[in-house]
């Protein structure tokens, strides 16, 4: 019979020149390059006094040669949106788009926080109380479940609309975006919901403030495994790659889409928990525009808006690029408007570079 190797059959040699490295490597290199630019500017700009972005060779401060305080900030400030981006990644890989998670965060923080309030604030009754005494000082699991349920309900509604009425995801989730924001404002007629129990505050502030990072990284690891190694993940890629083929292969595309959007909604619920806990308050405007930052992170991370391509690793790297830009500008003491301009340029160049790379890969074969 034909000679056989691990990767080929039929006597044809495994052609290394046709291999391309995974796109995540490019995103990682971009991250390193960006850090390099900031380090270089730190050395070159006269007012910076040779400061470094990531390094701090005075090991007495935190025991490492890294500036752990800044690294923590870099990851911390992208964790909350990063959790949303994990959901957006799956939605976009399946060929859809989700504009609603920011508003789902807005609605979830209000509703969940109403179940996390404490009865007495400095000995006085809670001035921001939403419900009566029965909803005060509940175990922390109650607001957690409420937030997850809000997220799943909103996400599953998106999924049902998209899968069964066949309206474009853009429209369905746009509707949810407006509706959920409305719910968030209606819930307490615009007033903030505040004074949560101490345990609830730990979700966003526990572990010396590292809790959001831990939640983000563990969820990223979990969904990386799910997308890469499970049937759910494979079908998500298949649907984004060729929905008709997926249907003909017997995948129940509609049911799968409901699941994808429900998971994206659930992650928005998790994000809402972390956000409201970290700020110890819930406000109707929370989560505004988070969906766009989340989509930007996934796109920078190499997830194709056409569907079928991308990964959680890419999205996490994309989120880190976001974090490095924000921290880098603060460290260079530049105004925040420049951040936004550069962010915009980076989003567009990420997509242009990705398409150029695709065309080059296509030309090679």
């Amino acid at each position, binding site marked *: *019979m*034909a000679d*056989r190797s691990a*990767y*080929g*059959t*039929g*006597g*044809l*040699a*495994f*052609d290394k020149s*046709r*291999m391309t490295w995974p796109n995540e490597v490019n995103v990682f290199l971009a991250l390193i390059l960006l850090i390099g630019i900031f380090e270089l500017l730190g050395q070159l700009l006269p007012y910076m006094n040779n400061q470094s972005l990531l390094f701090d060779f005075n090991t007495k401060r935190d025991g490492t040669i890294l500036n752990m305080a800044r690294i923590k900030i870099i990851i911390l400030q992208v964790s909350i949106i990063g959790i949303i981006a994990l959901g957006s990644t799956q939605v976009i890989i399946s060929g859809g788009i989700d504009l609603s998670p920011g508003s789902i965060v807005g609605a979830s923080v209000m509703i969940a926080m109403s179940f996390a309030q404490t009865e007495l604030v400095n000995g006085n009754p809670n001035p921001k109380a939403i419900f009566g005494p029965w909803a005060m000082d509940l175990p922390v699991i109650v607001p957690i479940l409420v937030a997850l349920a809000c997220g799943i309900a909103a996400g599953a509604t998106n999924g049902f609309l998209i899968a069964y009425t066949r309206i474009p995801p853009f429209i369905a989730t746009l509707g949810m975006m407006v509706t959920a924001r409305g719910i968030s404002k209606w819930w307490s007629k615009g007033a903030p919901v505040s004074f949560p129990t101490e345990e609830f505050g730990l979700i966003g502030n526990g572990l010396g403030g590292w809790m959001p990072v831990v939640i983000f990284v563990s969820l990223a690891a979990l969904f990386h495994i*799910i997308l890469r*190694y*499970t*049937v*759910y993940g*494979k079908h998500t*890629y*298949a649907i*984004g*790659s*060729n929905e*008709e*083929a*997926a249907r*003909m*292969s*017997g*995948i129940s595309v509609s049911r*799968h889409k409901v*699941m994808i959007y429900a998971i994206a909604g659930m992650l928005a619920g998790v994000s809402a928990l972390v956000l409201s806990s970290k700020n110890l308050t819930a406000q109707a405007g929370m989560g505004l525009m988070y969906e766009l930052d989340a989509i930007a992170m996934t796109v920078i991370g190499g997830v194709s808006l056409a569907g*079928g*391509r991308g990964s959680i690793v890419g999205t996490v790297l994309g989120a880190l690029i976001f974090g490095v830009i924000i921290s880098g500008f603060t460290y260079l003491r530049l105004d925040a408007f420049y951040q936004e301009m550069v962010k915009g340029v980076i989003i567009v160049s990420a997509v242009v570079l990705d398409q150029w790379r695709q065309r080059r*890969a*296509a030309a090679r*074969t």
Partner: protein
Amino acid sequence: MSDLILETRDLTKYYGGVHALEGANFTLRRDEHVAIMGDNGAGKSTFVRQITAVEQRTRGEIIFDGEPVNFNGPLEAREAGIETVFQTLALADDLDVPDNIFLGRETTKWDFLGPFRFLAYGAMRQATLEGLERTAVKIPNIRNKIRNMSGGQRQCVAITRTSTFRSKLTIMDEPTAALGVQETAQVENIIRNLKEQGDPLILISHNMRQVFELVDRIVVFRRGRIVANLNRDAVSPEDVVAYITGARTGDEFAVAA
């Protein structure tokens, strides 16, 4: 056990007022290769779509492997052993060869995890290599994405999908329509392989040379009806053309047409 793998009785499909398929009576023996020919719109693809349950028939009976069957969807037909290479191939461009071959019926482990059960990549890769060997298909790297493959390689992947699962009946809908000379030859070799192994095949093709080289019997469709059932050795290509165009109709079908 009957020696027929497939039989249809009065198989009919209307799309609204359009009679796309009318009273098709068709039989296929267990080791037989049959070609379905006919002009565009003659009902060939409609016929296949009823058998593979991509669409639900208006009326009629399908008897597969000795049992009357009513598949609710393509996956059920596939699980029963009818493998189809669709004209559109139905491949996911961003997945590699084993992923595509096992799409929708992955080998899994830890099934208690429900939709999050894990894929058994190793087993699927192994089965893919065995399938490729059976069909003698040459693909340099099965981890390559379908996007980066030539038309012929894609076709071969689609065909290998049928052989990997040891199907009872293979249906190919114009497998070489979009292929070059060399790639066509490769696909034809796969078909000869199937013949040697005694696997039944329904081949839809417009290519007269190919049909005469590969199959035992030719069934001609015209305007939604079967108009001829011809033994390859007893007819010439000119006869078949006459049946396709309507210049002639088989005696036993004269009333129907």
